[in-house]
């Protein structure tokens, strides 16, 4: 048996995993295990910025950031956690700068900030410049900077090892099992703690901004082990994905003045969010786009609208909105500004659409983007076993895979990056402390048995269905039925369809029977995980009979605070599922009607 002993293992090497590694490794012997090379992680695809009330360009306060986060999350946010995040955000962005992150600069040499959806001056209700940015590759810079710091601090990595099982003994975490992709060997990591930082599962949907690797392996494995997932009905559709491809076009485009235009040439967000317009929160805009399309105002009768950042168009709307620079002069944007501030967006449009955003509007549609729900944790990233906040000793999670909950029913732009550095760090510190307070538990008997059996089953078929066929069917039904708008009929149909696909899953044929870099096997295994998460997502969406944030039920159009101001927990027990509920932690902000 390939055996490794560490104090703690971190699964996933994006922003949350690397931040946890930097802090945990100060006081504990830590390994980072990832299915990818660390720099391939999807944190690197984040574009527009990281929110923090630095107030470098105008008045701002972390409390304003917290309120915006709570309101953006449609009051399902746990306000104690949001306070921690927004307060810590200020110091942690400065810490990233000290680590070497090349933020863009203001004329005075400070970290530059831009407006972003849902981030406001709480007095005037107007957009505030809060998103600290490095061009439109802020996530890339965070990922690179944290990886650089891990190299500096000699963090130990196991690259291209696929997490497959969590080991628990005596009621606490005892390590994990990973599949070494290069050799097909299983490895046991015997450890006091395991930290999940594996990101989201956007690949459940067929139009997504998410990487191929984002298949929700960790939450699916935990679900099978009888652990709960929280708020799985809440999945964010980002309003501006490149038409048909789903590639993300940052909200920073609208932060720089870009506007959404329907097929009749109208700036339709005036209707849906008269105060903040194109910088309303993402759920609001995605629904507006769907409604425009449903009412026949897509471009050329198709299912897309335009995102327009052409300088003459933007400047015209700056004038109409009376937008001013800090010195009182009218706000202006030039073609050169766009190339400077949004170089990757310009490159994506030119490469994939043959469209130059300086000369032409960009065809966009909502794209599956971010899981608000996930592994329930407290604000020290400790995994929870139930709605009563019972902790699983040695279990940690942070970043998109976790549900603290700081995003509630809808995440604000930039807050994913804030979340992963803040809770990655807090979790890393807490985990090292835990490791220094307990002995290594024994490994459970037959630690490898479950994974060995599963791999053998996947490889056994000599003919059958390609995994890709089932995956495509799942992605299509999730997009059509468990997307921006949902109804009982759509969700019931989706559930039936997903269960049919699950029944067919044992017939999946893996053609590659080898041990060397067998991605055919891994794709089949990932499909099994995605089908499990598709089922619980649909069940949770059926269960919540109200509309809140990213969960819009056409048959229950109102938010129902009386019955549903609560988090949902779901457990799987064989073929049965069970729900429980946890009250939302309310602090300074009482739920009120959400208007932008």
């Amino acid at each position: 048996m390939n055996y490794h002993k560490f104090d703690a293992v971190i699964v996933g090497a994006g922003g949350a995993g690397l931040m946890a590694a930097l802090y945990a490794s100060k006081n504990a012997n830590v390994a980072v295990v990832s299915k990818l090379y660390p720099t391939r992680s999807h944190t690197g695809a984040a574009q527009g910025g990281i929110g923090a009330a630095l107030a470098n360009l105008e008045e701002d306060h972390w409390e304003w950031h917290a309120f915006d986060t709570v309101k953006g999350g449609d009051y399902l946010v746990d306000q104690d956690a949001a306070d921690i995040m927004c307060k810590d955000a200020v110091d942690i962005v400065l810490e990233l700068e000290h680590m070497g992150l090349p933020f863009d600069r203001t004329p005075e040499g400070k970290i530059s900030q831009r407006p972003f959806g849902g981030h406001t001056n709480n007095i005037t209700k107007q957009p505030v410049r809060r998103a600290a940015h490095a061009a439109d590759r802020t996530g890339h810079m965070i990922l690179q900077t944290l990886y650089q710091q891990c190299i500096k601090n000699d963090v130990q990595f196991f690259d291209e090892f696929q997490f497959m099982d969590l080991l628990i003994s005596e009621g606490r975490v005892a390590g994990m099992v990973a599949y070494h992709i290069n050799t097909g060997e299983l490895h046991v990591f015997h450890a006091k703690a395991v930290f999940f930082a594996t990101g989201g599962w956007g690949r459940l949907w067929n139009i997504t901004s998410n990487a191929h690797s984002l298949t929700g392996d960790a939450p699916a494995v935990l679900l099978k082990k009888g652990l709960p997932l929280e708020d799985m009905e809440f999945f964010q559709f980002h309003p501006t994905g490149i038409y048909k491809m789903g590639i993300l076009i940052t909200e920073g485009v609208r932060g720089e003045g870009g506007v959404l235009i329907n097929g009749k040439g109208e700036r339709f967000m005036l209707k849906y969010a008269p105060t903040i317009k194109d910088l309303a929160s993402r759920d609001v805009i995605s629904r507006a786009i769907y409604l425009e399309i449903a009412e026949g105002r897509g471009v050329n009768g198709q299912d897309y609208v335009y995102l327009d950042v052409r300088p003459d168009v933007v400047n015209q709307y700056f004038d109409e909105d009376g937008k001013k620079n800090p010195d009182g002069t009218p706000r202006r944007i030039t073609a050169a500004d766009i190339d400077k501030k949004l170089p990757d967006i310009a490159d994506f449009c030119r490469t994939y659409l043959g469209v130059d955003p300086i000369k032409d509007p960009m065809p966009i549609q909502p794209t599956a983007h971010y899981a608000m729900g996930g592994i329930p944790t407290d604000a020290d990233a400790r995994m929870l076993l139930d709605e009563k906040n019972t902790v699983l000793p040695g279990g940690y999670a942070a970043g998109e895979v976790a549900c603290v909950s700081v995003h509630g029913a809808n995440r604000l732009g930039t807050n994913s990056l804030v979340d992963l550095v803040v809770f990655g760090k807090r979790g890393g510190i807490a985990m090292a402390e835990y490791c220094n307070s307990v002995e290594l538990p024994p490994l459970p008997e037959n630690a490898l048995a479950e994974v060995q059996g599963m791999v053998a089953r996947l490889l056994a078929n000599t003919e059958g269905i390609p995994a890709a066929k089932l995956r495509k069917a799942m992605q299509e039904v999730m997009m059509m039925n468990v997307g921006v708008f949902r109804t009982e009929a759509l969700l019931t149909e989706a559930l039936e369809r997903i269960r049919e696909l699950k029944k067919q899953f044992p017939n999946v044929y893996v053609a590659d029977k080898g041990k060397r870099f067998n991605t055919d096997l891994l794709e089949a295994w990932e499909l099994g995980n995605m089908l499990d998460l598709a089922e619980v997502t649909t069940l949770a969406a059926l269960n919540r009979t109200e509309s809140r944030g990213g969960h819009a039920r056409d048959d229950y159009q109102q938010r129902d605070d009386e019955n549903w101001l609560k988090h949902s927990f779901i457990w799987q027990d064989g073929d049965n599922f069970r729900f429980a509920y946890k009250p939302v932690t309310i602090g300074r902000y009482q739920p009120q009607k959400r208007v932008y």
Partner: protein
Amino acid sequence: MRVTLKLKRFNPEVDEKQHWEEYQIDVEPNDQLLDALNKVKWFHDGTLTYRRSCAHGVCGSDAMVINGRNRLACKVLMKDLGNKVTVEPIRGLPVVKDMVVDMEPFFAKFRAMKPFLINNTPAPDGRERHQTVEDRERFDDTTKCILCACCTTSCPSFWANGEYIGPASIVQIHRFIFDTRDEATKERLEIANDAMGVWRCRTVFNCVEACPREINITKAIGEVKKAILEG
């Protein structure tokens, strides 16, 4: 459109050496080459092996030699490749299987460059270190690197001598020596000035051609050379 993909295949568990295999598939003109490879893997031959993740040119997983040039499979469209497309693994690194190469020698070089900010002066308490817009601009281009290895594995000097640190490593040196916050210029330039350092660059410009992030690598190497000469 119907295309023929001619793929260089190698599975050490069954093959003694690399060989070509051809696949005819239907693709859309705007499909990425990655979509075409996925089509082969998902519906024709599950054993075809390559790395991929983000599928829009920012993670750096899928560098390959495509019609003879180093590109990312997700950043080149089928309509720009013609109806016969050859795909091989990037050169100069050991082939693991099909398009997958052992990246460890590449990352080992990266790590040897001290690719992290070195600044032993305490940062201002509770504030950022300041940097002018112009100073930030000075190294902007080289912060775009995604470590895909397209540049290094397109470089004849690297093919000739695998010990050469290669363009990707020099990009990292550039990124830090022109960052006003970094205090280790001297030791970085010593690394660059090594026998296996910048002087092995013969300004062939393959790296510039290959970079999917459009970094002007040869210019960056030139600036590092100049910095060494100016001490």
